[in-house]
């Protein structure tokens, strides 16, 4: 007689499948230890963590040069991490410690206690004209707005209004590099990488200060 499972091979469920899931605290502790050891060994290229904010959870990622990515939940944090692993380095770990300073400044910004960011940023995810646009955005002051057309002029290419829109839509560092301060020439709010509601929240916060 043929049997469905091989002789001498007990069913899977027997000894091992009923094992409890590995304790979350244990995994957290091990990841923390790994992040520290990887940092010491120079093997931690990208550190990340998430923080809560009035515009939802934000993913923060940093290289040794500085903050390299801020991502809204609508950008799908898992996908963002996959792209960071592909575009920057697969040596990427949850390592909140390296992002303490960034988290603090962003918390202060949302609390209305901070009007500018002092943290070092790494713009290596943006290239060419998009990167140039991002550097121009940093000149728009807290509580102010500028039009896409004005930024195109500031970036030295008055016809590149659409390209400015693209640069804002693909800003790897929203909130910190203030693409939310760029609005349409007719005064309407325009699009935003984190959704129009988030853009309204940021502009309202800055107007209230």
């Amino acid at each position, binding site marked *: 007689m043929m049997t469905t499972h091989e002789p001498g091979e007990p069913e899977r469920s027997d000894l091992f499948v009923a094992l409890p899931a590995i304790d979350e605290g244990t*995994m957290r502790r091990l990841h923390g230890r790994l992040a520290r050891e990887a940092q010491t060994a120079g093997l*931690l290229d990208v550190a990340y963590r998430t923080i809560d904010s009035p515009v939802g959870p934000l993913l923060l990622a940093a290289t040794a040069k500085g903050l390299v990515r801020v991502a809204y939940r609508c950008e799908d944090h898992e996908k963002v991490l996959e792209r960071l692993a592909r575009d920057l380095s697969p040596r990427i770990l949850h390592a909140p410690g390296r992002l303490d300073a960034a988290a603090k400044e962003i918390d202060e910004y949302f609390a209305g206690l901070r009007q500018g960011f002092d943290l070092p940023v790494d713009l290596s995810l943006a290239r060419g004209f998009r990167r140039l646009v991002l550097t121009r955005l940093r000149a728009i002051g807290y509580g102010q707005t500028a039009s896409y057309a004005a930024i195109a002029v500031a970036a030295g290419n008055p016809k590149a209004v659409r390209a400015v829109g693209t640069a804002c839509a693909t800003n790897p560092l929203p909130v910190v590099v203030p693409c939310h301060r760029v609005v349409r020439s007719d005064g309407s709010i325009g699009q935003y990488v984190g959704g129009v509601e988030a853009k309204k929240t940021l502009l309202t916060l800055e107007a209230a200060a």
Partner: protein
Amino acid sequence: MTSHGPTVLRVCRAVLGPMDAEDAWSETFLAALRAYPTLRPGSNVEAWLVTIAHRKAIDQARARARRPLPVDPLRERPASSKADRSDDDLWAAMQALPFKQRVAVAYHYVVGMPYADVAALTGGSQDAARRAAADGIATLRKTYGEGGPR
């Protein structure tokens, strides 16, 4: 990569026991971080991590063999009912198995690797891997499983 953390920890616990598992887990992931840039895209990351963990396990098993006072993990355990036995007891019971049986059980039953892959990892034939796992399971049934002498 770290989404495979729990699986790798189970492997380390199964092969090395709860005491040495965390060191081996750490060493496995540090080695993986070091080697990651050479991993071909589309590779099976879990199988790759298990391979690294296997090498770390061999290193640790050798280091353990050199230690002056081997500790029998089964000896000083307090008696406990089946219900409140944690999975640590199972990992401890596995430590009494010969290394070949232990790794065969770990990779086939804990990770779910087919015997062909287990054999590729541990050396030897697929049949040998199957026999080693079966012998290991038979022993575990006596030392840990229901109805066995406690």
